[in-house]
């Protein structure tokens, strides 16, 4: 068994090595035709840029970093030249038209938002590599090996860990799960991955190409970085779902929950949207609710849905109904868990890949206070941004109170959508625990939490006086709830942040905790602790 495990580890590492290694192979030759098409597609008007790129790029051979930085360098030089011109002409009278024309020649290449859209298509079109020539082989050597290796590494635990039960042995003695060297290396890897994915996809053209055949067979389109991300997401969740099955095979709540959340990810966030595209419909994830799905009310999304016939109209209405009606009603009956740990993709990754990091969440009162500020501020930010967006959409004005709507959207997209949700939310799993995004940043979680806290049948019931204050529940609460503080007082746990993962109940050695939906009356116990039979209520 140990042997199989080791083989699995080697295969998995090999798969990752191929995947990461592919970044550094292949060369990029920009042919005249590729160049012209790209300039055309991008609508580049700067003759300075075109001329210099014609000389310095076309027909030459680069690696990805060289080509990308060359393009950026030339673009920045040209932008500077155009802006100089503008400054000169601004001193003169009657040059407005010329100035406007010159502005249109400026190429925007901020790394945080516009850079990738500019360079990525050129790099993608000009790569020559073994990956490009042998895409199926590349898929098998990367995804194939990593998935098979991962499964071989995980499944022997069925035997190795002994009879079914809670087996968190040595979790606090491993560097990878205690913010040690292993954890830091993992975090750096995750963070780097997210930076490349969000901001520098032009460096990972080969890794993206490993998923190209799958993309072609699903949607008929070549793979984008988002397709690759979707496939990685589904693969990782599948492998780690198997880990959950092994670990919690005695706990049907965990088994069913894991299966359902995996299903929603693979079907709703991946297969269905890709197939919709195949049938010329908008890419749409039916379970991704606003405000987590913050682009839902963006003008391009509304336009795209409005232009997609009955189905598009249905999607638009469904998106609104989901947030306005379905979510609060179901939270009333089942708690926010139905979304956060049964349906949501972020939650799904946290409950699978993130499971080994759940104990790293901070349980202090100070951080709880911080959490309550920050998550509701993000919700307010999302509301303001969406409000401004809709105002602009209906009124046609590009700014509100002097602030450009597009700027608000970019801020939100960069700080919340990319940095908070991705880089910190997932990249920092090994440092902050697996729910940092869900706990501190997700505006949808904030909304669900308000409903759960004030109008819901859901609670975690504490079983009388059986608690021995051991602290397993608090330790393994990924949301950083000090469950023990309630349980040892005989108080039910009613907290807006609880995502109902069920692990506190699973790790409790005394059968003290039960997630349940029951009548609202008596849900919150204000004056807990009863001394024995005479029931002296303590204040």
């Amino acid at each position, binding site marked *: 068994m140990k042997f199989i495990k080791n083989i699995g580890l080697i295969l998995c590492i090999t798969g990752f090595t191929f995947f990461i290694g592919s970044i550094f192979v292949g060369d990029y030759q920009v042919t005249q035709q590729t160049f012209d098409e790209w300039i055309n597609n991008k609508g580049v008007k700067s003759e300075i840029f075109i001329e210099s790129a014609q000389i310095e790029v076309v027909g030459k051979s680069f690696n990805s970093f060289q080509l990308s930085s060359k393009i950026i360098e030339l673009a920045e030089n040209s932008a500077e030249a155009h802006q100089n011109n503008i400054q000169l002409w601004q001193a003169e009278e009657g040059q407005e038209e010329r100035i406007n024309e010159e502005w249109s020649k400026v190429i925007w290449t901020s790394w945080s938002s516009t850079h990738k859209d500019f360079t990525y298509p050129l790099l993608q079109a000009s790569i020559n590599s073994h990956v490009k020539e042998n895409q199926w082989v590349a898929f098998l050597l990367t995804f194939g090996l990593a998935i098979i290796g991962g499964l071989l590494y995980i499944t022997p635990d069925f035997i190795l860990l*002994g*009879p*079914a*039960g*809670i087996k*968190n*042995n*040595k*979790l*606090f*003695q*491993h560097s990878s799960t205690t913010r040690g060297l292993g954890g830091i290396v993992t975090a750096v890897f995750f963070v780097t991955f997210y930076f490349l994915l969000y901001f520098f996809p032009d460096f990972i053209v080969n890794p993206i190409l490993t998923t190209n055949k799958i993309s072609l067979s699903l949607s008929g389109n070549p793979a984008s970085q988002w397709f690759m991300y979707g496939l990685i997401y589904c693969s990782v969740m599948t492998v780690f779902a198997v880990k959950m099955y092994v670990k919690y095979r*005695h*706990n*049907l*709540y965990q088994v*069913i929950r894991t299966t359902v959340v995996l299903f929603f990810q693979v079907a709703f966030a991946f297969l269905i949207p890709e197939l919709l595209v195949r049938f010329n419909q908008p890419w749409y994830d039916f379970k991704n609710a606003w405000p987590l799905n913050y682009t839902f009310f963006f003008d391009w999304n509304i336009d795209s849905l409005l232009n997609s016939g009955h189905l598009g109209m249905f999607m638009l209405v469904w998106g609104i109904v989901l947030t306005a009606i379905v979510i609060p009603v179901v939270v009333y009956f089942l708690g926010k868990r139905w979304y956060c740990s049964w349906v949501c993709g972020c939650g799904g990754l946290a409950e699978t890949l993130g499971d080994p990091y759940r*104990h790293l969440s901070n349980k*202090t*009162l100070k951080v709880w206070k911080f959490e309550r500020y920050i998550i509701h501020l993000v919700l307010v930010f999302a509301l303001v941004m969406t409000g401004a967006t809709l105002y602009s959409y209906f009124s046609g004005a590009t700014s509100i109170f002097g602030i450009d709507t597009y700027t608000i959207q970019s801020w939100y997209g960069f700080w919340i959508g990319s940095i908070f949700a991705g880089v910190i939310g997932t990249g920092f799993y090994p440092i902050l625990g697996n729910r940092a995004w869900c706990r501190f940043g997700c505006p949808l979680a904030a909304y669900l939490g308000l409903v759960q806290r004030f109008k819901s049948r859901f609670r975690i*019931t504490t*079983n*009388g*006086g*059986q*608690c*021995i*204050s*051991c*602290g*397993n529940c*608090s*330790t393994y609460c990924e949301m950083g709830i000090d469950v*023990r*503080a309630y349980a*040892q007082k005989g108080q039910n746990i009613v907290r807006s942040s609880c995502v109902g993962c*069920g692990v506190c*109940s*699973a*790790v409790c*050695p*005394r*059968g003290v905790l*039960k*997630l*349940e939906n*029951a*009548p609202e*009356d*008596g849900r919150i116990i204000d004056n807990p*602790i009863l*001394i*024995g*039979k*005479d*029931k*002296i209520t*303590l*204040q």
Partner: protein
Amino acid sequence: MEHVVIIGNGVSGITTARHIRKLSDKKITVISAETDHFFSRTALMYIYMGHMKYENTKPYEDWFWKKNRINLLRAFVQNINTEKKTLRLDNGTDLAYDKLVLAVGSKPNKFGWPGQDLDAVQGLYSYQDLEAMEKYSPTTKRAVIVGGGLIGVEMAEMFLSRGIAVTFLVRENRFWGGVLPKREGELISRHIKKHHVDLRFETELQEIISDDNGRAKAVLTKIGEEIECQFVGLTAGVSPNITFVKESTVKTNRGILVNEFLETNIPDVYALGDCAEFHEHPTGRRNLEQVWYTGRMMGETLAQTICDKKTAYRPGMWFNSAKFFDIEYQTYGRVYNELKDNEADFYWEHESGEICLHLVYDKASNRLLGINTFGIRMRHEVCERWIDGGETIRFVMEHLKDANFDPEFYKQYENQIVREYNKENGTSFKPKKRDWKRIFAKN
């Protein structure tokens, strides 16, 4: 301002301190020689196994004590002068008190075995015990555990998590035979063996043999078998840790003798928790009850008394719980290891041999007396209502679903259990559906 000094920062002492603070403005000092802060000793095993860190076992953050003006003093109390109302500490200073609370806990039993004080021979009660286990573990290939109770199983589980082989010596013919009825004892025995513990019944320790450095190297059993080992766990129960109290005027027996208000024979001196022994238990339970929640309940009660709301200790129905490797156990009311003359019982065991339910009731009145459950969680409040309310076994069977506390989607066995009950008793009723109104009814 009145100064309340509490010796011991376990659950009993700390609960007392917290509730005195809730009720009053008295000056509170808690003395401990063990750790700076309160931690949950029930979680010691989880620290060793890597499920938690020491930090995780502290139920309150470190700022809590200062904020609540509970002074923590790390010291060892050498003796008590009840006339002058002072304590002599190990640093030579005296500490004056107005009211003294003795919450000094227990220590593992040693029954005079030769070699019982060798290195690597110990129980598991204090933080220092845990540190010693850590110290000896790297050089231990086999551990022998003496005494088949809860701590013994915890120790076995701990060693197995590090790949250390365990031989478990049990005096009775089944596991925890002094507490568990035969079939439950056998169920747990099977489970322990499934985890590859070398479990030996009716085997008693004769002697622990030393190596050249004063460390245990083997045990000798009463039948003369020598078992090589590098660690001996003594887990045959605990007894009050009251050596220094015995030298004072405070009256003791096995524990510190108290009345139902937890008062000792000396005014303004109280005792509670593991170390307190009732002259006569106020509700007929055992005079010495060394469990977590009784310490907590006593602390809540004593705080009332100390804050001039004299309150008798009334723990109500006996209950307890434990976990044996992967099997959880809960008990409500009284299920003795042997049926009493007036008792009858119903026992159901799942075909897996790892889940069972055992109900004991009064033969004449059919009223429920106690529940043992293994592998099924049950609702404390509902069980208490049944037992205190004198519900009959038939009523309990009919409403069994109300008491299920297993997580959602778990397989439920009530139909199966009631079928078996019907078969045995020639009845033919069906269990009622779970009903929230009944479950959450006000007592």
